[in-house]
């Protein structure tokens, strides 16, 4: 299927709706009602779990058929280890991203991406 710019515009507008609903509804509901304490305690573990899952998707999953690739993207795995080290020591988001990009670009010359 080949989309025209008009199709793309419709896609963008619908994407906005799809992105807005889950952002707005919980904010609206919970800003006027008391959140139970257990819910807040639970939410504390959401960011770390979610971001880990997203990283795993990028590094270990082939999203064309959702198969596990193991060490198939070795360059990304090694670069990811570098990023963890840089992030832990520097606490700098910008530095982590830029060095991560440089690392994966260099590793891609010798390892599968």
């Amino acid at each position: 299927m080949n989309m025209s710019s008009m199709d793309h515009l419709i896609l963008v507008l619908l994407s906005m709706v799809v992105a807005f609903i889950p952002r707005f509804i919980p904010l609206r509901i919970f800003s006027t009602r008391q959140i139970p304490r257990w819910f807040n305690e639970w939410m504390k573990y959401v960011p770390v779990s979610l971001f880990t899952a997203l990283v795993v998707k990028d590094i270990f999953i082939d999203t064309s058929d959702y198969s596990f690739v193991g060490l198939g993207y070795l360059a990304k795995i090694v670069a990811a280890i570098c990023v963890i080290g840089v992030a832990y020591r520097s606490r700098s988001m910008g530095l982590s991203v830029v060095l991560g990009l440089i690392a994966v670009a260099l590793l891609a010359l010798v390892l599968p991406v």
Partner: protein
Amino acid sequence: METEKPRWREVLEISMPLCLSYIPIGLACGILLHAAGFNWILTTLVSLLVFSGGAQFMIASMLVANAPMHTILIMLFFLELRYALLGSSLSQYMRNTSKKFLYIFAASLNDENYAVNYLKFATDKGWSPKDALMVEHYSLLFWTGANLIGSLIGNMININLDIVDFALTALFLYMVVMQIKNVLTILISLLAAVLAVISMVLIKSTMGLVVATLLASLVGFIIEDYLVKHGREKGFLLKKIKPKASRKVISKSGE
């Protein structure tokens, strides 16, 4: 005390690390969207209206793979579902705001400005919803600008898109590292990784991300609750980990 800086400048300084790190990611995203057939107007629009790195990277890669529109939208919805969790955890700080404010705030909420705002709300009593909205808008401005430039240089240079895609992975990795507070968070992160692989392979969609996130965070909550109730806050699992570098950062911003 020195002369008071205007509030917008103070907030800008707090947002700056985030804004600067959006530049390489935004450039990468703009280049990918260009490769997917978006012109610069569409790229600017999607950055302003959707404002989600993950969503925009996904739109680009699915368009390249010739996915039909409804498939892209369903995938996006599941990817964006995580904002429900971010929104709920910020909502306690959004009391006494108008419905209109919540609309505007929700529209430009995303992972990264959430991370900044959540930290500020939790540690700074003077941090207001208005400041939080300012952080969102500064990051939106930098994000959109970087995407626009990426879109414009997309046809001048030829880059391996798999490599550009790693910008987002690196960003998520950074955020995982920032979340590590004790041994238990490391264990929950590993559990989330294993669950993510299993659930994505079984469900064959990014819905697996949501399942893994909910399960892993629930296990973390249950274990912490158990340890606290049995008086083991100072035990091996919940003892705080403090890297040397973070102390310097904290004392700097604490002045």
